[in-house]
Protein backbone atom coordinates (compact mmCIF):
# COMPACT_ATOMS: atom_id res chain seq x y z
CA UNK A 1 0.00 0.00 0.00
CA UNK A 2 3.01 2.21 -0.24
CA UNK A 3 1.68 4.17 -3.25
CA UNK A 4 -0.92 5.81 -1.01
CA UNK A 5 1.66 7.81 0.90
CA UNK A 6 3.57 8.96 -2.14
CA UNK A 7 4.24 12.62 -2.45
CA UNK A 8 1.22 14.23 -4.14
CA UNK A 9 3.44 15.91 -6.70
CA UNK A 10 4.65 12.52 -7.81
CA UNK A 11 1.58 12.02 -9.98
CA UNK A 12 2.13 15.25 -11.79
CA UNK A 13 5.78 14.75 -12.48
CA UNK A 14 5.25 11.16 -13.48
CA UNK A 15 3.96 11.75 -17.02
CA UNK A 16 6.92 13.98 -17.77
CA UNK A 17 9.34 11.42 -16.44
CA UNK A 18 7.72 8.76 -18.53
CA UNK A 19 7.88 10.88 -21.63
CA UNK A 20 11.54 11.50 -20.95
CA UNK A 21 10.79 15.12 -20.15
CA UNK A 22 12.50 16.16 -16.99
CA UNK A 23 11.97 19.70 -15.79
CA UNK A 24 15.57 19.88 -14.62
CA UNK A 25 18.18 17.62 -16.12
CA UNK A 26 20.90 15.93 -14.09
CA UNK A 27 23.31 18.60 -15.25
CA UNK A 28 21.04 21.29 -13.79
CA UNK A 29 19.61 22.58 -17.08
CA UNK A 30 15.95 23.17 -17.77
CA UNK A 31 13.98 22.10 -20.84
CA UNK A 32 14.79 25.33 -22.70
CA UNK A 33 18.43 25.19 -21.67
CA UNK A 34 18.37 27.75 -18.88
CA UNK A 35 19.82 27.35 -15.44
CA UNK A 36 17.46 27.53 -12.49
CA UNK A 37 18.03 31.21 -11.74
CA UNK A 38 18.08 32.54 -15.31
CA UNK A 39 15.41 34.66 -16.96
CA UNK A 40 14.26 34.13 -20.50
CA UNK A 41 15.47 36.64 -23.05
CA UNK A 42 13.61 39.92 -22.72
CA UNK A 43 13.04 42.10 -25.79
CA UNK A 44 11.08 45.31 -25.50
CA UNK A 45 9.99 48.22 -27.63
CA UNK A 46 8.30 51.43 -26.56
CA UNK A 47 6.04 53.68 -28.58
CA UNK A 48 4.85 51.07 -31.06
CA UNK A 49 1.55 52.85 -31.80
CA UNK A 50 1.10 56.47 -32.70
CA UNK A 51 -2.59 56.89 -31.97
CA UNK A 52 -2.33 55.67 -28.38
CA UNK A 53 -0.92 57.97 -25.70
CA UNK A 54 1.56 55.30 -24.71
CA UNK A 55 2.31 51.82 -25.96
CA UNK A 56 4.87 49.06 -25.57
CA UNK A 57 5.59 45.56 -26.74
CA UNK A 58 7.50 42.97 -24.79
CA UNK A 59 8.79 39.48 -25.45
CA UNK A 60 9.86 37.31 -22.56
CA UNK A 61 11.02 34.16 -24.25
CA UNK A 62 8.00 33.01 -26.21
CA UNK A 63 5.52 35.04 -24.17
CA UNK A 64 4.59 38.16 -26.10
CA UNK A 65 2.47 41.02 -24.81
CA UNK A 66 1.29 44.31 -26.19
CA UNK A 67 0.15 47.18 -23.97
CA UNK A 68 -1.51 50.48 -24.82
CA UNK A 69 -2.33 53.34 -22.49
CA UNK A 70 -4.86 56.11 -23.04
CA UNK A 71 -5.39 59.06 -20.81
CA UNK A 72 -5.79 60.75 -18.46
CA UNK A 73 -9.11 61.65 -20.06
CA UNK A 74 -12.68 62.32 -19.04
CA UNK A 75 -14.46 59.41 -17.30
CA UNK A 76 -16.61 57.88 -19.99
CA UNK A 77 -17.94 54.45 -19.13
CA UNK A 78 -19.67 54.19 -15.76
CA UNK A 79 -19.71 57.73 -14.49
CA UNK A 80 -20.48 56.34 -11.06
CA UNK A 81 -16.83 55.35 -10.79
CA UNK A 82 -15.71 58.97 -10.86
CA UNK A 83 -13.30 59.82 -8.03
CA UNK A 84 -13.07 63.43 -6.89
CA UNK A 85 -9.58 63.15 -5.46
CA UNK A 86 -7.80 60.89 -7.93
CA UNK A 87 -7.90 59.28 -11.32
CA UNK A 88 -9.59 55.96 -11.99
CA UNK A 89 -7.40 53.25 -13.50
CA UNK A 90 -9.20 50.99 -15.92
CA UNK A 91 -7.42 47.83 -17.09
CA UNK A 92 -8.42 45.31 -19.67
CA UNK A 93 -6.59 42.06 -20.19
CA UNK A 94 -7.18 39.97 -23.25
CA UNK A 95 -5.58 37.02 -24.94
CA UNK A 96 -5.49 36.75 -28.68
CA UNK A 97 -7.42 33.72 -29.94
CA UNK A 98 -4.21 32.41 -31.53
CA UNK A 99 -2.08 32.92 -28.43
CA UNK A 100 -2.41 29.43 -26.96
CA UNK A 101 -1.82 25.95 -28.32
CA UNK A 102 -5.53 25.33 -28.58
CA UNK A 103 -7.42 28.18 -30.17
CA UNK A 104 -9.30 30.29 -27.62
CA UNK A 105 -12.98 30.90 -28.16
CA UNK A 106 -13.20 34.12 -26.13
CA UNK A 107 -10.33 36.57 -26.24
CA UNK A 108 -11.59 38.49 -23.20
CA UNK A 109 -14.37 38.59 -20.65
CA UNK A 110 -13.94 35.11 -19.23
CA UNK A 111 -13.29 34.62 -15.58
CA UNK A 112 -9.52 34.33 -15.82
CA UNK A 113 -9.25 37.49 -17.90
CA UNK A 114 -11.44 39.40 -15.51
CA UNK A 115 -9.32 38.29 -12.58
CA UNK A 116 -6.20 39.27 -14.47
CA UNK A 117 -7.69 42.69 -15.28
CA UNK A 118 -8.48 43.20 -11.62
CA UNK A 119 -4.95 42.29 -10.56
CA UNK A 120 -3.50 44.65 -13.14
CA UNK A 121 -5.74 47.45 -11.91
CA UNK A 122 -4.69 46.90 -8.32
CA UNK A 123 -1.04 46.84 -9.35
CA UNK A 124 -1.18 50.06 -11.30
CA UNK A 125 -3.40 51.95 -8.88
CA UNK A 126 -0.61 51.41 -6.37
CA UNK A 127 2.14 52.90 -8.50
CA UNK A 128 0.55 55.60 -10.65
CA UNK A 129 0.36 58.98 -8.91
CA UNK A 130 -3.41 59.14 -9.42
CA UNK A 131 -3.88 62.13 -7.11
CA UNK A 132 -2.55 64.40 -9.84
CA UNK A 133 -5.51 63.80 -12.13
CA UNK A 134 -8.75 64.05 -10.16
CA UNK A 135 -11.99 63.13 -11.93
CA UNK A 136 -10.26 61.52 -14.86
CA UNK A 137 -9.60 58.05 -16.14
CA UNK A 138 -6.50 56.19 -17.30
CA UNK A 139 -7.02 53.18 -19.56
CA UNK A 140 -4.52 50.35 -19.78
CA UNK A 141 -5.19 47.69 -22.39
CA UNK A 142 -2.95 44.64 -22.52
CA UNK A 143 -3.09 41.79 -24.95
CA UNK A 144 -1.18 38.53 -24.91
CA UNK A 145 -0.16 37.62 -28.43
CA UNK A 146 1.59 34.41 -27.50
CA UNK A 147 1.26 32.65 -24.18
CA UNK A 148 4.16 30.64 -22.83
CA UNK A 149 3.87 31.05 -19.07
CA UNK A 150 4.19 34.16 -16.97
CA UNK A 151 1.40 35.99 -18.77
CA UNK A 152 0.72 38.30 -15.87
CA UNK A 153 4.40 39.21 -15.65
CA UNK A 154 4.66 40.05 -19.32
CA UNK A 155 1.51 42.17 -19.02
CA UNK A 156 2.80 44.10 -16.02
CA UNK A 157 6.19 44.72 -17.63
CA UNK A 158 4.64 45.81 -20.92
CA UNK A 159 2.12 48.04 -19.17
CA UNK A 160 4.89 49.68 -17.11
CA UNK A 161 6.72 50.62 -20.29
CA UNK A 162 3.50 51.86 -21.88
CA UNK A 163 2.63 54.02 -18.85
CA UNK A 164 6.13 55.51 -18.89
CA UNK A 165 5.80 56.12 -22.63
CA UNK A 166 2.49 57.90 -22.03
CA UNK A 167 4.21 60.23 -19.55
CA UNK A 168 1.90 59.32 -16.70
CA UNK A 169 3.66 59.92 -13.37
CA UNK A 170 4.58 56.73 -11.51
CA UNK A 171 6.21 56.34 -8.12
CA UNK A 172 8.49 53.62 -9.44
CA UNK A 173 8.61 50.94 -12.09
CA UNK A 174 6.62 47.79 -11.47
CA UNK A 175 8.36 44.64 -12.52
CA UNK A 176 6.89 41.20 -12.27
CA UNK A 177 8.41 37.76 -12.30
CA UNK A 178 7.47 34.20 -11.39
CA UNK A 179 9.42 31.64 -9.45
CA UNK A 180 8.46 28.03 -8.92
CA UNK A 181 9.58 25.17 -6.77
CA UNK A 182 10.07 22.07 -8.84
CA UNK A 183 12.06 18.93 -7.97
CA UNK A 184 13.11 20.50 -4.66
CA UNK A 185 14.79 23.49 -6.20
CA UNK A 186 13.55 27.01 -6.86
CA UNK A 187 13.21 27.96 -10.54
CA UNK A 188 13.01 31.47 -11.95
CA UNK A 189 10.67 32.65 -14.71
CA UNK A 190 8.54 29.57 -15.21
CA UNK A 191 7.61 28.65 -18.77
CA UNK A 192 4.33 27.04 -19.81
CA UNK A 193 5.67 23.48 -19.64
CA UNK A 194 7.04 24.08 -16.17
CA UNK A 195 3.81 25.78 -15.11
CA UNK A 196 1.76 22.79 -16.21
CA UNK A 197 3.95 20.41 -14.25
CA UNK A 198 1.65 21.34 -11.40
CA UNK A 199 4.33 22.46 -9.01
CA UNK A 200 3.74 25.50 -6.80
CA UNK A 201 4.85 28.86 -8.13
CA UNK A 202 4.79 32.44 -6.99
CA UNK A 203 3.96 35.50 -9.05
CA UNK A 204 5.51 38.66 -7.67
CA UNK A 205 5.06 42.24 -8.85
CA UNK A 206 7.26 44.72 -7.09
CA UNK A 207 8.72 48.18 -7.19
CA UNK A 208 12.36 47.25 -7.69
CA UNK A 209 13.97 50.36 -6.22
CA UNK A 210 12.02 50.56 -3.01
CA UNK A 211 11.67 46.74 -2.88
CA UNK A 212 8.00 46.98 -2.07
CA UNK A 213 5.81 44.11 -3.16
CA UNK A 214 2.73 45.28 -5.04
CA UNK A 215 1.21 41.91 -5.79
CA UNK A 216 2.01 38.41 -4.60
CA UNK A 217 0.14 35.38 -5.78
CA UNK A 218 0.72 31.72 -5.12
CA UNK A 219 -1.09 29.06 -7.08
CA UNK A 220 -0.76 26.02 -4.85
CA UNK A 221 0.71 24.93 -1.55
CA UNK A 222 4.35 25.43 -0.74
CA UNK A 223 6.12 24.49 2.46
CA UNK A 224 6.90 27.52 4.61
CA UNK A 225 10.58 26.53 4.78
CA UNK A 226 10.90 26.90 1.01
CA UNK A 227 8.84 30.04 0.74
CA UNK A 228 11.71 32.35 1.55
CA UNK A 229 14.04 30.80 -1.04
CA UNK A 230 11.43 31.08 -3.77
CA UNK A 231 10.47 34.62 -2.83
CA UNK A 232 14.10 35.70 -2.80
CA UNK A 233 14.61 34.24 -6.23
CA UNK A 234 11.48 35.97 -7.57
CA UNK A 235 12.67 39.27 -6.05
CA UNK A 236 16.00 38.87 -7.77
CA UNK A 237 14.15 38.10 -11.00
CA UNK A 238 12.15 41.32 -10.70
CA UNK A 239 15.37 43.27 -10.27
CA UNK A 240 16.87 41.58 -13.32
CA UNK A 241 13.78 42.49 -15.33
CA UNK A 242 14.06 46.04 -14.03
CA UNK A 243 17.65 46.30 -15.27
CA UNK A 244 16.50 45.39 -18.78
CA UNK A 245 13.46 47.69 -18.74
CA UNK A 246 15.48 50.57 -17.32
CA UNK A 247 17.98 50.32 -20.16
CA UNK A 248 15.16 50.37 -22.71
CA UNK A 249 13.51 53.41 -21.10
CA UNK A 250 16.74 55.38 -20.97
CA UNK A 251 17.50 54.55 -24.58
CA UNK A 252 14.00 55.54 -25.59
CA UNK A 253 14.16 58.87 -23.76
CA UNK A 254 17.49 59.88 -25.28
CA UNK A 255 16.40 58.60 -28.71
CA UNK A 256 13.17 60.61 -28.75
CA UNK A 257 15.05 63.64 -27.47
CA UNK A 258 17.56 63.32 -30.30
CA UNK A 259 14.66 63.12 -32.76
CA UNK A 260 13.07 66.22 -31.27
CA UNK A 261 16.23 68.29 -31.42
CA UNK A 262 17.05 67.10 -34.93
CA UNK A 263 13.66 68.09 -36.33
Amino acid sequence: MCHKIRHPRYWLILPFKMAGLEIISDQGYRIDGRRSSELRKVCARMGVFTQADGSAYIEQGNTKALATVYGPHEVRKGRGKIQHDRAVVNCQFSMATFSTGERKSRPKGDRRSQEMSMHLRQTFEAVIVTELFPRSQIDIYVQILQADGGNYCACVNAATLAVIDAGIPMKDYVCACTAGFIQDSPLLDISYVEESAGAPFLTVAMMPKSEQIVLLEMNSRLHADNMEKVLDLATQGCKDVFAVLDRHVRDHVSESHALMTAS
Partner: protein
Amino acid sequence: MAAPRVCVPGERLFSTADCEAGPGTYVHHGYIYSCLAGYMHKRKQDGKELPIIEVIRQKEDAVPRKDSIVTAKVTSVSGRMCKCAITCVERTTLREPFRGLIRKEDVRATEKDRVEMYKCFRPGDIVLARVVSFLDKKVQVSLLTGFLDAACQLSLGDANCYLLSTAENELGVVLALSEAGAQMVPVSWCDMQCPKTGSKESRKVAKVQLQQE
Protein backbone atom coordinates in the same frame (compact mmCIF):
# COMPACT_ATOMS: atom_id res chain seq x y z
CA MET B 1 26.23 73.55 -19.53
CA ALA B 2 26.51 69.86 -18.80
CA ALA B 3 24.30 67.45 -20.72
CA PRO B 4 20.93 67.13 -18.97
CA ARG B 5 20.51 64.00 -16.95
CA VAL B 6 18.03 61.33 -18.04
CA CYS B 7 15.66 60.36 -15.24
CA VAL B 8 13.35 57.38 -14.90
CA PRO B 9 10.41 56.92 -12.52
CA GLY B 10 11.50 56.11 -9.00
CA GLU B 11 15.00 57.51 -9.41
CA ARG B 12 16.24 59.36 -6.34
CA LEU B 13 17.42 62.83 -7.31
CA PHE B 14 18.17 65.03 -4.30
CA SER B 15 17.45 65.51 -0.64
CA THR B 16 14.68 67.96 0.22
CA ALA B 17 17.30 69.86 2.24
CA ASP B 18 19.09 70.86 -0.97
CA CYS B 19 16.26 71.35 -3.42
CA GLU B 20 12.55 71.82 -3.76
CA ALA B 21 10.32 69.37 -5.63
CA GLY B 22 8.82 70.70 -8.85
CA PRO B 23 6.66 69.18 -11.58
CA GLY B 24 7.46 65.58 -12.54
CA THR B 25 8.81 64.73 -9.09
CA TYR B 26 7.50 63.56 -5.74
CA VAL B 27 8.81 63.61 -2.20
CA HIS B 28 9.16 60.47 -0.10
CA HIS B 29 10.94 60.22 3.25
CA GLY B 30 12.85 63.46 2.77
CA TYR B 31 14.10 62.74 -0.73
CA ILE B 32 12.97 63.94 -4.12
CA TYR B 33 12.24 61.20 -6.64
CA SER B 34 11.41 61.44 -10.32
CA CYS B 35 8.00 60.16 -11.40
CA LEU B 36 8.50 60.59 -15.15
CA ALA B 37 10.98 59.46 -17.73
CA GLY B 38 12.59 62.61 -19.03
CA TYR B 39 15.32 65.14 -18.43
CA MET B 40 16.09 66.70 -15.08
CA HIS B 41 16.36 70.47 -14.82
CA LYS B 42 17.50 72.54 -11.88
CA ARG B 43 15.96 75.98 -11.86
CA LYS B 44 16.81 78.93 -9.62
CA GLN B 45 13.78 80.50 -8.01
CA ASP B 46 13.58 84.24 -7.50
CA GLY B 47 13.64 85.19 -3.84
CA LYS B 48 14.14 81.65 -2.66
CA GLU B 49 17.29 79.94 -1.56
CA LEU B 50 16.63 76.44 -2.79
CA PRO B 51 16.60 75.65 -6.49
CA ILE B 52 13.58 73.81 -7.85
CA ILE B 53 13.99 70.38 -9.40
CA GLU B 54 11.74 69.33 -12.25
CA VAL B 55 11.62 66.49 -14.71
CA ILE B 56 10.60 67.56 -18.19
CA ARG B 57 9.29 65.53 -21.08
CA GLN B 58 7.75 66.58 -24.34
CA LYS B 59 4.23 65.44 -23.64
CA GLU B 60 2.46 67.00 -20.69
CA ASP B 61 -0.77 66.03 -19.01
CA ALA B 62 -3.25 68.19 -17.20
CA VAL B 63 -6.80 68.13 -15.94
CA PRO B 64 -8.96 71.18 -15.22
CA ARG B 65 -8.77 72.26 -11.61
CA LYS B 66 -10.70 74.75 -9.54
CA ASP B 67 -9.71 78.35 -10.38
CA SER B 68 -7.59 77.41 -13.40
CA ILE B 69 -8.10 79.34 -16.63
CA VAL B 70 -9.21 77.12 -19.49
CA THR B 71 -9.74 77.58 -23.20
CA ALA B 72 -12.98 76.08 -24.44
CA LYS B 73 -14.93 75.83 -27.65
CA VAL B 74 -18.66 76.45 -27.47
CA THR B 75 -20.62 73.46 -28.72
CA SER B 76 -24.21 74.42 -27.97
CA VAL B 77 -26.09 77.36 -26.53
CA SER B 78 -29.48 77.29 -24.84
CA GLY B 79 -31.47 79.91 -22.95
CA ARG B 80 -30.11 78.79 -19.58
CA MET B 81 -26.60 77.68 -20.31
CA CYS B 82 -23.90 77.08 -22.80
CA LYS B 83 -22.04 73.83 -23.25
CA CYS B 84 -18.45 73.74 -24.33
CA ALA B 85 -15.49 71.47 -24.85
CA ILE B 86 -12.43 72.35 -22.77
CA THR B 87 -9.37 72.01 -24.96
CA CYS B 88 -6.64 73.75 -22.98
CA VAL B 89 -5.86 74.13 -19.29
CA GLU B 90 -3.61 77.11 -18.59
CA ARG B 91 -0.79 76.50 -21.07
CA THR B 92 -1.14 72.78 -21.70
CA THR B 93 -3.25 71.42 -24.52
CA LEU B 94 -5.39 68.45 -23.60
CA ARG B 95 -5.26 65.35 -25.75
CA GLU B 96 -9.00 64.97 -25.51
CA PRO B 97 -11.54 67.64 -24.61
CA PHE B 98 -13.29 67.71 -21.25
CA ARG B 99 -16.91 68.84 -21.02
CA GLY B 100 -17.65 72.24 -19.57
CA LEU B 101 -20.76 74.27 -18.90
CA ILE B 102 -21.34 78.01 -18.47
CA ARG B 103 -24.53 78.84 -16.64
CA LYS B 104 -26.46 82.00 -17.39
CA GLU B 105 -25.63 83.55 -14.02
CA ASP B 106 -21.90 82.97 -14.49
CA VAL B 107 -21.56 84.83 -17.79
CA ARG B 108 -20.80 88.26 -16.32
CA ALA B 109 -20.44 89.89 -12.93
CA THR B 110 -22.95 92.71 -13.38
CA GLU B 111 -26.61 92.71 -14.40
CA LYS B 112 -26.69 88.95 -14.06
CA ASP B 113 -30.44 88.71 -14.49
CA ARG B 114 -30.41 90.57 -17.80
CA VAL B 115 -28.03 88.14 -19.50
CA GLU B 116 -29.26 86.69 -22.76
CA MET B 117 -27.25 83.61 -23.63
CA TYR B 118 -27.73 83.96 -27.39
CA LYS B 119 -26.21 87.44 -27.22
CA CYS B 120 -23.17 86.20 -25.36
CA PHE B 121 -22.02 83.03 -27.06
CA ARG B 122 -22.51 81.24 -30.35
CA PRO B 123 -21.50 77.68 -31.18
CA GLY B 124 -17.92 77.61 -32.47
CA ASP B 125 -16.68 80.54 -30.38
CA ILE B 126 -13.42 80.15 -28.50
CA VAL B 127 -13.87 81.19 -24.90
CA LEU B 128 -11.51 81.86 -22.02
CA ALA B 129 -13.10 80.88 -18.72
CA ARG B 130 -12.29 80.07 -15.13
CA VAL B 131 -13.21 76.73 -13.57
CA VAL B 132 -15.68 77.29 -10.73
CA SER B 133 -16.32 73.73 -9.64
CA PHE B 134 -17.11 70.28 -10.85
CA LEU B 135 -20.76 69.58 -11.47
CA ASP B 136 -21.80 66.20 -10.16
CA LYS B 137 -24.96 64.49 -11.24
CA LYS B 138 -26.57 64.89 -7.83
CA VAL B 139 -25.51 68.50 -7.48
CA GLN B 140 -26.72 69.27 -10.94
CA VAL B 141 -30.18 67.91 -10.23
CA SER B 142 -30.57 70.07 -7.14
CA LEU B 143 -29.16 73.10 -8.94
CA LEU B 144 -31.42 72.80 -11.89
CA THR B 145 -34.67 71.61 -10.36
CA GLY B 146 -35.71 75.24 -9.93
CA PHE B 147 -35.63 76.01 -13.61
CA LEU B 148 -35.74 72.82 -15.60
CA ASP B 149 -36.32 73.37 -19.26
CA ALA B 150 -35.92 71.02 -22.16
CA ALA B 151 -32.21 71.72 -22.61
CA CYS B 152 -31.45 71.14 -18.95
CA GLN B 153 -33.25 67.84 -18.94
CA LEU B 154 -31.25 66.77 -21.94
CA SER B 155 -28.01 67.65 -20.23
CA LEU B 156 -28.89 65.55 -17.19
CA GLY B 157 -28.16 62.51 -19.31
CA ASP B 158 -24.54 63.49 -19.64
CA ALA B 159 -23.89 64.91 -16.20
CA ASN B 160 -20.43 65.32 -14.71
CA CYS B 161 -18.87 68.34 -16.29
CA TYR B 162 -16.87 71.35 -15.18
CA LEU B 163 -18.77 74.53 -14.29
CA LEU B 164 -17.10 77.50 -15.93
CA SER B 165 -17.44 81.21 -15.34
CA THR B 166 -16.67 84.19 -17.58
CA ALA B 167 -17.59 86.79 -14.96
CA GLU B 168 -14.33 88.74 -15.28
CA ASN B 169 -13.22 91.41 -17.73
CA GLU B 170 -10.39 89.25 -19.04
CA LEU B 171 -12.66 86.26 -19.63
CA GLY B 172 -15.15 85.64 -22.42
CA VAL B 173 -15.05 85.17 -26.17
CA VAL B 174 -11.60 85.62 -27.68
CA LEU B 175 -12.16 84.24 -31.17
CA ALA B 176 -15.42 84.20 -33.10
CA LEU B 177 -16.49 83.88 -36.70
CA SER B 178 -19.19 86.11 -38.14
CA GLU B 179 -22.13 84.91 -40.18
CA ALA B 180 -20.08 85.66 -43.27
CA GLY B 181 -17.38 83.36 -41.97
CA ALA B 182 -14.73 85.97 -41.23
CA GLN B 183 -12.89 86.29 -37.96
CA MET B 184 -14.43 89.18 -36.06
CA VAL B 185 -12.65 91.99 -34.23
CA PRO B 186 -13.82 93.17 -30.84
CA VAL B 187 -15.21 96.71 -30.79
CA SER B 188 -16.55 96.87 -27.22
CA TRP B 189 -16.98 94.53 -24.28
CA CYS B 190 -20.26 93.31 -25.72
CA ASP B 191 -19.82 93.68 -29.48
CA MET B 192 -17.69 92.24 -32.21
CA GLN B 193 -17.55 93.42 -35.79
CA CYS B 194 -17.10 91.49 -38.99
CA PRO B 195 -14.31 92.98 -41.14
CA LYS B 196 -15.95 91.66 -44.33
CA THR B 197 -19.51 92.96 -44.02
CA GLY B 198 -19.15 95.48 -41.23
CA SER B 199 -22.07 93.99 -39.34
CA LYS B 200 -21.94 93.87 -35.56
CA GLU B 201 -22.70 90.80 -33.50
CA SER B 202 -23.02 90.75 -29.75
CA ARG B 203 -20.76 88.56 -27.65
CA LYS B 204 -19.38 88.57 -24.12
CA VAL B 205 -15.98 89.76 -25.29
CA ALA B 206 -12.82 89.10 -23.31
CA LYS B 207 -10.42 91.94 -22.77
CA VAL B 208 -7.26 90.16 -23.83
CA GLN B 209 -4.19 91.59 -22.24
CA LEU B 210 -0.85 90.95 -23.79
CA GLN B 211 1.49 89.35 -21.34
CA GLN B 212 4.63 91.30 -20.73
CA GLU B 213 7.57 89.01 -21.00
